[in-house]
């Protein structure tokens, strides 16, 4: 029993009216509530009573009574637009070199900006982004300054030389790279060129320490963040909340000279050969698809990677390697096209990372329809040939 002991003198003193020569008490006034308010079960029941029913029915889920007994809730803060934060005179700079394929930041690049903001905000620094083509998404991602790299085409050596010049001239406390094919290559080139301490594949990062796996992932190495850090994917959360100005700045980069790479040509992945986990665009069939030949023709025509729900894999209509979901493959695709799939939780787990979902289903209330960005309530058996015919027709002239 931990009820506080009543003090009658203090209770009486709470009713005392201030001022006046003689002490006066207003015993009828309710004293300021102290501690937990008293419940009135009868009033709660009266409020929970559902009117207009023959039998007495209480709907306690309304929770009106309890709410009325509570002190009035604070008004909800209005959803504010992200605030612009200007760092006019930064103490130092933290540089980020995102991959930004095609000028658009990838999810990994945004995490890189999150890490840079964390390092910069520790001591009043600013984030400087080195990009080939400055885009509009740098400000929301967390860049204060933007420097355009004077590089055309695929020339990592020229990029590394330009970065080395900037590293020597500007007060860059850290330079962050993504641990991807191009980012990792560039980081190591710069490390070899400048001789600065380099930390490869950081798996966690804070202003005090970075860690990475070494010796065949048996040992964790840890140190204070050095100048060059290469960050693994999904290690740091992307920046959110404030908007930054992404001010373009100028820097006199040295003239690039011709490298050893004579030509570079990008070859897109062959979707028929790529594994499901790596695929960018997955076209998937469920129990609602009975004509699998048309489905396969459609996948080939759309240039996608074929997937399936567990129902089809269990029935042996599609290979097990094509199964999408919790017990199959968790996709990393950008776009998912689901034909006749109900959207069981086990299946949706496999699609959780997809940015865009398109669903065709006969059932308006299927979970897949709810998840989809473009949902079409129609018979997949009729939509598939129509889509094929349309693709064929566009290919003719």
């Amino acid at each position, binding site marked *: 029993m931990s009820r506080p002991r009543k003090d009658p003198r203090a209770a009486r003193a709470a009713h005392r009216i201030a001022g006046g020569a003689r002490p006066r008490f207003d015993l009828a006034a309710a004293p300021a509530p102290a501690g937990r308010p008293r419940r009135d079960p009868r009033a709660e029941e009266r409020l929970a009573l559902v009117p207009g029913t023959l039998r007495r029915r209480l709907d306690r889920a309304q929770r009106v009574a309890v709410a009325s007994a509570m002190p009035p809730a604070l008004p909800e803060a209005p959803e504010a637009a992200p605030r612009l934060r200007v760092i006019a005179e930064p103490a130092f700079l933290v540089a980020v070199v995102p991959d930004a394929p095609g000028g658009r930041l990838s999810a990994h690049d945004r995490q890189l900006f999150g890490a840079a903001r964390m390092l910069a905000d520790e001591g009043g620094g600013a984030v400087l982004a080195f990009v080939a083509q400055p885009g509009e998404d740098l400000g929301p991602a967390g860049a204060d300054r933007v420097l355009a790299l004077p590089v055309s085409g695929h020339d990592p050596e020229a990029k590394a030389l330009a970065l080395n010049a900037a590293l020597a001239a500007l007060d860059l406390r850290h330079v962050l790279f993504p641990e991807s*094919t191009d980012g990792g290559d560039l980081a190591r080139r710069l490390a070899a060129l400048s001789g600065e301490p380099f930390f490869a594949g950081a798996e966690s990062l804070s202003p005090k320490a970075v860690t990475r796996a070494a010796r065949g992932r048996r040992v964790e190495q840890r140190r204070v963040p050095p100048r060059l850090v290469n960050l693994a994917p999904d290690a740091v959360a992307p920046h959110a909340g404030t908007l930054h100005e992404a001010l373009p700045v100028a820097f006199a980069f040295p003239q690039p000279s011709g490298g050893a*790479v004579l030509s570079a040509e990008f*070859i897109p992945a062959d979707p028929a050969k790529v594994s499901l986990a790596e695929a960018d665009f997955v076209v998937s069939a469920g129990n609602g698809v009975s004509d699998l030949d048309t489905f396969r023709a459609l996948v080939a025509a759309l240039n996608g990677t074929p997937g399936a729900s567990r129902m089809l894999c269990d029935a042996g209509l599609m290979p097990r390697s094509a199964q999408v979901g919790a017990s199959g493959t968790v996709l990393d695709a950008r776009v998912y096209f689901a034909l006749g799939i109900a959207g069981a939780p086990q299946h949706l787990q496999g699609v*959780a990372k997809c940015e865009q979902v398109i669903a065709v289903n006969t059932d308006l209330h299927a979970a897949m329809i709810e998840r989809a960005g473009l949902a079409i309530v129609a018979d997949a058996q009729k939509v598939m040939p*129509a889509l094929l015919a349309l693709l064929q027709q566009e290919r003719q002239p």
Partner: protein
Amino acid sequence: MKIAVLLSAGRHPVSGRPAPVPVELQAIRLAVEIGRQFGGDVTGLHAGPELGPLTDALGHGLARLVHLHNEGESDPAPSLAAALAEGAYDLILAGRAGQGGEDSGLLPYTLARTLGLPIIADAAALALGEAPGTLGVEQALARGARRRLLVRLPALVTVHPAAPAPLPFAFAAARRGSSEARPGRHAPAPSPTVEERPYRPRPKLIAKAAAGSTALERLRAATEAASGGGRLLVDPAPEEAAREILAHLRALGLVTAR
């Protein structure tokens, strides 16, 4: 044409015992196949205190192995740089990162810098260039994409795990192959600046963790993440549905208009 393959002292990821690094065995295969077309010879180079299980590399197609003998903890880069400069190799292959040591993948870059060679990362396939003295390198990118580069030789190329699997081990080839020991150049290893402790896997970031209060809401957040906030078409004609889907895919940049 002279080809060198750099071999590092690896450790098996599960047992922790000394073992060759798989991606370096893949590099041997690429080197042997290029050597067969060009009529070149392939040499393996290792700098370290002992060869140990690296003699297995001879069974995976390597004909000659040179061991640059170093005492204890010493930096392999100067020994390798000296041997590579002396051998005047046209093509030097290395793994993308070691397995069992520092594993940072920085050594090929420092070597390329000291030797003044261009470096190409993450090769999945090699081919001869049309012009003499050039090499076609197929670079492995994310999501199964490739980039085909043409480089002038001599060059240093690192190999990606997406390259073809190593040649199978043959006992007779391992017996036939020769290994030769040479004194290396001793250079003290840089003093460690890192603190080491047993590895502990870190939790990966999850896009939208624990949103909402009830179990149902958390399940929704886990499964229905970015709901497209999308468009719903109820019972359209199949042709109209097809047109809509195609327009949507085009907007996402997937199906190119021909």
